[in-house]
């Protein structure tokens, strides 16, 4: 039986704007198993991205528990959360979120260097992952010289290079044309087949079907599993 890699209990997120309070996540109980490919779907404002940000440690919930890979992340300090993200999690953002001053290989190698890997091995590993996502020969290109699809593939390579326990993807195809979107999903399927846990937020039902399981969000609660 597969172990639970993400578990939330009564996860709540409330935004405060002056006197006005808006609860975006309402007591979410959720479990994701290791090696699962889960798509979180929902309309705009349903709370899907907010849920992703909480379980990927990019934000802190107002209340509730999150356990990731056996670690209750609630009590982690700011620096411990950073280190946890570095070692356990990988991110693919909607707008690629590459660093403009770094080449493709440098963007991918940065988390590895931060982990303490020496430059030679970090670059070698980065080139291997860039090859995996079909970017041979683009190692030294800066993001501005790459197409949107290519930039998203660099972003995927960066997220995968350090073998994260979980890959989080926030609307990874939203800024891409169909061809590039399908290529990204194909890469996701391939890495999932090798056992990678993936949590992807999307509003495209067709793309969500690529996943093992779809979590439907509606008005801050899980609508169906």
């Amino acid at each position, binding site marked *: 039986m597969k172990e639970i890699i993400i578990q939330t209990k009564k996860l709540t997120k409330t935004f405060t704007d002056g006197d006005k309070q808006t609860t975006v996540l309402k007591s979410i109980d959720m479990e994701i198993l290791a090696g699962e490919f889960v798509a979180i779907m929902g309309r705009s404002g349903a709370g899907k991205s907010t849920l992703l940000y909480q379980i990927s440690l*990019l*934000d802190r919930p107002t209340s509730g528990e999150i356990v990731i890979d056996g670690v209750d992340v609630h009590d982690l300090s700011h620096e411990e959360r950073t280190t946890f*993200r*570095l070692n356990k999690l990988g*991110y693919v953002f909607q707008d690629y*979120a590459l660093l403009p*001053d770094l080449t493709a290989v440098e963007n991918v190698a*940065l*988390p590895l260097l931060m982990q303490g890997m020496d430059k030679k091995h970090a670059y070698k590993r980065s080139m291997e992952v860039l090859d995996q996502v079909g970017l041979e020969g683009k190692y030294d290109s800066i993001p501005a010289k790459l197409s949107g699809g290519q930039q998203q593939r660099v972003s995927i390579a960066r997220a995968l290079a350090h073998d994260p326990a979980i890959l989080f993807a926030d609307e990874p195809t939203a800024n891409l044309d169909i061809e590039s979107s399908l290529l990204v999903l194909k890469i996701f399927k391939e890495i999932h087949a090798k056992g990678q846990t993936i949590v992807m937020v999307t509003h495209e039902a067709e793309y969500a079907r690529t996943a093992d399981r779809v979590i439907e969000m509606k008005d801050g609660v899980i609508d169906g599993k």
Partner: protein
Amino acid sequence: MVKNKKIHNIKIGFFLAFRQLKHASIWTTGLIVVVMMLTFLNLVVVNGILVGLIESSIEASEDRYSGKVIISTLRQKSIIENSSEIESVLKNLQNVTGIVPRVLAGGTIQADYRRLLKPEETPNQASTNISGIIPSEEDKVTGLSNYVIDGTYLDDEDRDGVLVGAFLINELTPIDSIGFSQLRNIKVGDRLKLTIGNNSKEVYLRGILKSKIDNIDARIIMTQSELRKLIGRSDTNVSEIAVKLTPGSTEEDAVRVKNILIANGYDFDAKIQTAKEAEPKFLKDMKDLFGLLGTLMGSIGLVVASITVFIVIFVNTLTRRKFIGILKGIGITSKSIEYSYIIQSAFYAILGAILGMLVLYGFLVPFIDKHPINFPFSDGILYAPLSGTLWRVLALFVTTIIAGYIPARMIVNKNTLDSILGR
């Protein structure tokens, strides 16, 4: 995997800073570096010129008048006993390159002595020190002939020629002060009457001296033999001995010479001082004051530079807030990001200081040395000793780093997700 976290964070900081600098606009980088260079020059040059004003005056005084050691009469004495002995001892010292014995006497020089003055008229005369020199020896050691601005220098055999300092001629140095008298409307070749005590002698104005040294420009200079005759002295004792040491000698060398004379007991015959000890107190106070003023003015420049760097780094971090958020999001520590901005600030400061030092020592110092600034009381040089300059480099470096660190920390401390989403 990471042994020393701090060093590791610095290494990542270097990685990020280097790449950010590499892709930065060359014009922006150039502008910041030029601001840094000008700040550095402002720090060093303002102070250097102010202190150089006094320092050049002191150097000139040593060069043209006192030498490194000056021996003068004890209080209540008009001569230095055993002058010849002292001179012999000095001549045998290894680093003594020249000695200048001078005889001094107080007296008056008058221009309108040949006509009868009306009762309400004040005589055209000046009271001052008269210095008796051996012209060739004085010139060899102090180069006094170089400061004759009108007329000619004295010969050793000159019987009635005198040199008059520019302070004693109203047209050259207008001083309107009660108790200080000056000669008016005199020119080279004019006959003058020199009076010392009850003795007078008719002399003529052979030359006018202007050396920017008070002890030269406020004196009347004539041959030692003629002065001795006038004051009725037949001994060989003198009133003042200037001692020149080998070029580049330090205060310690001067103290060594002084101590040798004291060890021989000559401090009972004369007042023995290094030139530094003989400096008037007001000159030392002025030097300190000008140094303080220069530092204050330089500090204002330093504040301006730190504000510039603060704004540059603040704008830089603000526009790159999203990328700072991404860096934090993918697991780069806040410290590494802060170090990257500190390193960028340090780069601006170091490059600015290096360029500043090149301009300073490669151009400004040698140029001003060759073409001193013509101040009324000294030939201004740019006084910039390396040790002082390095302290200012350090001040610029530390200030710039702090100015770069504060905005970086402000932005890095923002919520990671807010930074990524730009909210």
